[in-house]
Structures are given as C-alpha cells and as structure tokens.
C-alpha cells in the first residue's frame, strides 16, 4: 500500500531497524518497565484485540518498552494473520452473545420454515383438488337446481311462461313431440316403466302421481328458485312449436303470470295424454285426487312408485328439456338443441352482435330465455346462437 509519508525518515528508520535487528541483544533490550511481563494468555488476548479496554493502556506501554514481549506479540499477530478463522470465530461469539435472535426470526429458521412450507403445500394441494372436484360436476349441480318435477300423468307447469317438458308425458303426444325425437327417446327410457303402467293400468299413473307429491314439491321449489332468474317467455302455441308467433307472447311480463299459467295449463293438457292431463293443473297438490279408476291399487304400488320416482329423478338430472316459444329444447352438455334440429349446418351468431340484432324478435327472445349456446331451427334455417 502506497503511503504518503516522509521517505527520508522512513529510510532512516529502516536503516536503524536493520541495525537493531542484526543485534539480538539490542532487539530484546528491556527498558524501564512498570508492569510485569504478560503471560501467553494475555499476549494472545491482546493480539486478538480481546482484552478489556481498561487493561489495554498498561499492556501497550509494556509492549512499547519490552522488546521480548513485543517480539512474541508480533509473532502471534503474524501467525494469526495466516489463520484468521479462529479470530473470526471469536468475533462471531461476541456478536452472537450481543444479538440474540428475535422470536419472529426464529420462525424462519431452517427446520421451522421447512415444516411450514410443507404444511402450506399440503393445504394448497387440498384446496386445488377440492376446487377441481367441485367444478368437474357442474351438470349434476345445474340439473339438480333445475330439476324437472317428474309426473307420470302430466306436465309440471311453471308460472314463468315456459313449459318444462315432462319426459314421461312426451311420448304420449306424438303430435307435439314430433320434433323432439331425442326427447322422446330420453323420455322413453325414463318413462317406460310409467308408460307401461299407465297404458295398461291407470293405477300406476295415479300412484306415481301420488308418489310424486314430494317430487313435485321439490321440483316446484327448485323451479321457484329459477323462476326469478329466467327471462319470461310466452307460452308456446298449443299445436305447433314451429310457429311460436301464433299467440305466443315472448315478452310476457310477470304481471301476466296468471294468464300465462292458464295458457300453459291448456298447452300442457294438449300435449299430454289423457292420464297426464288429469294431473296437469298448476297445483299438483299433494292432495291431488288420484284417478278414479285406480284407487284400490294406489296403496299397494306405493313402494314401486317411490322407486320409480327416484329413478326418474336421477334421469331428470341427466337430461334436461325445456319448451320455449313452442319449441322444445334439449340440453346436451352446455348446448340447448332444438328438437327439430337434425344435424344440418348452422349459422353461427353471437349474442349482442349486429347479426343477432337483425334476427327475428321472437328468435331473440328464445335466445335470451336460454343461457349458453342454443341450436334452434327458425324458419327452416338452423342457427347456433352463443
């Protein structure tokens, strides 16, 4: 290291030092000492700057005057500089003693941190799995909330201007269900048991009707939930679902609920079998009178009806159908398919787009009534509105 010092004095002192070092006796000359010679422990402590401050002045004075002790000190200092690890350790001991680790820093010590991170990982994995499982069954949940009240003898009628197609009744009226082959097939699977019973014996129907009390109530409850969320669509035309304009009022407000209800009742009656029509009234009350023709068998078929009800409930959850504007829609995944659709090419339109606004008002109403993507046949043309 370059020093800006007096070179002449430096030269003189070096010359003097060389002369002193050459003579061992001169080097270890001991002048007037006021303090005793320090022992190795004190010299070592001084060399490491570990002596208490109060003791340092006396030691400095001794080392300045005692060549022997100063030489020992300089040797120790030189040797220590070659192996500083121990001295660093001494400093670390001092620092460790002075500064204890605070409680909030101990938390981040390696073992605690590892356990904490492991626990967090487990928690997040569980949350992700739970969310994934929950989201992977949306259809089941949606079907549950919109469960169609199953009624073997009739249609469940809602007061929101739309008719939910009752699967069990669908196949009984082929005229209105001619455009819903898929609905028919679904209905067939679910209502075979009931139809078979109803065709041969009115008792099962009545029994089913009686047994469906709770189901209807349930359906009504779920319908009530969804009623407020659904746009009101006008009741469909009684005969043709392709002509929703005939008498349909798509924008029927809620204030016309009673009129719509009457219309729906008529529609349901027209679309259902005779056996269903007897139970198609809006209030399929628990005390709905069973068919007169089969009072005797109702009690004995109760267990069977319960089983059928459960089966229908399960089926309902799987396949959902709705009738809006006289058109029957079946839900497949997230898409509502018009019963009249048979796979032809579609015109894709997005809700809110210019093309959508150019559509017929009734068609737009149907699109607004159903959420998600719908495939609808309108004036012999297939549209995919999403």
């Amino acid at each position, binding site marked *: 290291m370059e020093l800006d010092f007096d070179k002449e004095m430096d030269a003189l002192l*070096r010359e003097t030092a060389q002369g002193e070092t050459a003579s061992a006796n001169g080097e270890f000359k001991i002048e007037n000492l006021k303090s005793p010679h320090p022992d190795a422990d004190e010299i070592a402590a001084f060399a490491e700057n570990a*002596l208490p401050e*109060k*003791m340092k002045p006396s030691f*400095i004075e001794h080392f300045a005057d005692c060549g022997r002790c100063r030489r020992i000190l300089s040797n120790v200092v030189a040797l*220590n500089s070659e192996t500083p690890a121990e001295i660093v*350790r*001494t400093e670390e001991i001092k620092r460790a003693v002075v500064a204890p680790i605070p409680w909030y820093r101990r938390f981040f010590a390696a073992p605690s941190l590892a356990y904490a991170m492991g626990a967090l990982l487990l928690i997040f994995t569980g949350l992700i799995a739970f969310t994934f499982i929950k989201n992977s069954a949306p259809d089941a949940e949606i079907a549950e909330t919109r469960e169609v009240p199953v009624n073997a003898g009739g249609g469940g009628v809602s007061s929101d201007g739309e008719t939910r197609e009752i699967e069990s009744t669908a196949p009984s009226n082929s005229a209105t269900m001619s455009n819903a082959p898929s609905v028919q097939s679904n209905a067939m699977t679910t209502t075979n048991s009931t139809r078979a019973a109803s065709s041969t014996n009115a008792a099962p129907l009545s029994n089913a009707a009686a047994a469906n009390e709770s189901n209807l109530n349930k359906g009504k409850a779920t319908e009530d939930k969804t009623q407020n969320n659904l746009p009101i669509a006008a009741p469909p035309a009684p005969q043709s679902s392709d002509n929703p304009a005939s008498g349909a009022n798509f924008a029927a407000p809620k204030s016309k609920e009673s009129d719509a209800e009457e219309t729906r009742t008529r529609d349901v009656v027209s679309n259902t079998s005779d056996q269903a029509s007897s139970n198609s009234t809006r209030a399929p009350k628990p005390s709905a009178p069973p068919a007169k023709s089969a009072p005797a068998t109702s009690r004995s078929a109760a267990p069977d009806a319960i089983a059928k009800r459960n089966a229908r409930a399960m089926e309902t959850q799987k396949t959902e159908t709705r009738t809006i504007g006289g058109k029957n829609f079946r839900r497949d995944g997230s898409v509502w398919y018009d019963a009249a659709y048979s796979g032809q090419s579609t015109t894709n339109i997005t809700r809110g787009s210019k093309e959508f606004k150019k559509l017929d008002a009734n068609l737009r109403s149907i699109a607004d009534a159903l959420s998600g993507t719908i495939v609808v046949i309108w004036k012999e043309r297939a549209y995919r509105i999403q």
Partner: protein
Amino acid sequence: MSSAAVEKNRSQIEEAIARLISRASDSRRLEIADLRERVEKSIEKYVLRADENAPFAEIKEFVDALCADDLCLIIACEKNDEKAWEDLVKNYDGTVKSAARKMSNNSEDAEDLASSIWAELYGLKHDKDGKLKTKLSYYSGRGSLGGWLRAVVSQLAIDGFRKESKFVQIEEAREFERLANDSAEHTDNAAIVHATANPEENFSARQTEKDVSDALRSAISRLEAENKLILKLYYFDDLKLKDIGAALGFHEATASRKIVRIQSEMRKSVEKILIGEHGWTREEVKRHLTDAASKLDVGLEKMFALFVVAALVQELFGAGVL
C-alpha cells in the same frame, strides 16, 4: 481466593457460567462447578485487576465473551478426559507444528519445539495436591485456544533463542578478535588492516552516525506508548499495517495515518535533538537525511544490479559459454 466482588455476585456468575456451558457446541458433560474456579480467576485477572469495583454488567459481558468450546475442551483435558485430549491433539497439533516451524531455523528444531510444547501442555510435574502441573491451567478462554498456543510456542522459542543467542554472541566476538589479531600479525594483510587512508573522515563519519543513532533512539523514547509500539511493530518487526490495526483495534487506514504522523513527529524530534544537543546546523541535518535516503536508494540499485549480473552469469553457465 475469590475477591469480594466475585463473592458478592456468585449466583449471577454461576448463571453466566450456565449460559457459557449452553453456548458450547460440546460442553463435554462439564458442570458449573467444573468451570467456576477458572472463570472466577479470569474475572479477577482481566476485570477486577483494572477496577476492583467493576459493575456486574461488565463481569457478565466478560463471561459471555469467553470462548466456550475452547474453555470446555481445556478444562476437560485437565480432568483427564481422554476424548478431550484426542480432540485437542487432533485439532491443534497442526497449529503447534506450524508455529514451531515459523519460529525455528530448521525442521529438526521445529519438531523439538513442538514436542516441548506438548510436554508442557500435558504436564510432567505434580503440584502439592498431586495434580499435574500443566500449562493448560493458564488458559483463561478470553482469546482463542489457537492464538494462545501460538503465543506459548513463540514465547518458548524466543526465550530459548535468547539463551542461545547470548552463547553465540560470545563465540562470534572471540572469533572476530582472533581474525583481527591474525590480520595484524601477517604483514601481507597490513594494507587490509589499514585500508582507510583518512582517519579523520572515518572518525567524522562514525561520529555522525552515532549522533543520528542517538537522536533517533531519543526521539523514539519520547513518543507516546501507542505510537512507539506502532513504530516498532512496523519498522522493527516488519508487521503489516493491517495486522497492526487488527491487534490494536483500528482500521488499516487509521494505522497508515498514524504512521505518517509518527514520522512527522520523529523528524521534528530528530532535528531538534541534532541541532540542540549535538550542535548540527539545519543544512547539515537536511543533507544527512537526504544522504540517508539516497544511500538506501543506492543500496537498492546496487542490489538490483548485482541480481542482474548474477542472473546473466547463470544463463551463460547454462548455455555453456562460460
């Protein structure tokens, strides 16, 4: 015998010793009672000697700064713990041997020195209580064990060297005397004996050197203790400023500034002594200092030239020219 201050704070000292034991990574199954005597002695040596009425906070700080592992190791060795001795030899034999090699001229002397150290550490004599008198009892734990061992080696080496150097000095003096007499008796060497033609110049040169030497010594003795120590450590012991600063507790830059101030103080002091006590003029002082510096430079130049010549000669020998 424990001092009054130690007696007064005994319970707190024991708490501090308990903390010391807990600090050690290997306490070697030592208890408070095993360490109490040593720690109390250290407190008396380092704290109470300077201030008998030192507050307990100072005592506590002192105990908390002791090297716990080293102290536990040494005390376990004193209790003849074999494992402790194994660890001591395994971990510190290198330190002792390395220090011994630096203190000695050759490897044989270094081995002898190292063996002597271990013998003193182990202890060869017994005291009145029958305990082995070992140098380990002098270790307080204030500094590191390695530093203490280096100090022990250095102390033993220097004390041994001093004994030998006195012996050698006498022999050398006799040898020089014999040579001088031989030269005087042989007429062929008369010219060598009387080499200098002008005795007055010789006397003047010798007197000048003596005056300067006296002035320097006097100036050094008038320095403050710390400055004197720094100057001697730097010029006489050839220590680096960094190491001087580390030992005295300041930075290397501070040590550098101190050296510059010391030189300035020395110059003023030397000039004053030469002018005031030896009758020199200011110009003489200035000339002598300049000459001293140039002599050193010339000396260095000569050394460099000699080195170059030696290297050339070696090359020529190697090439087969010479």
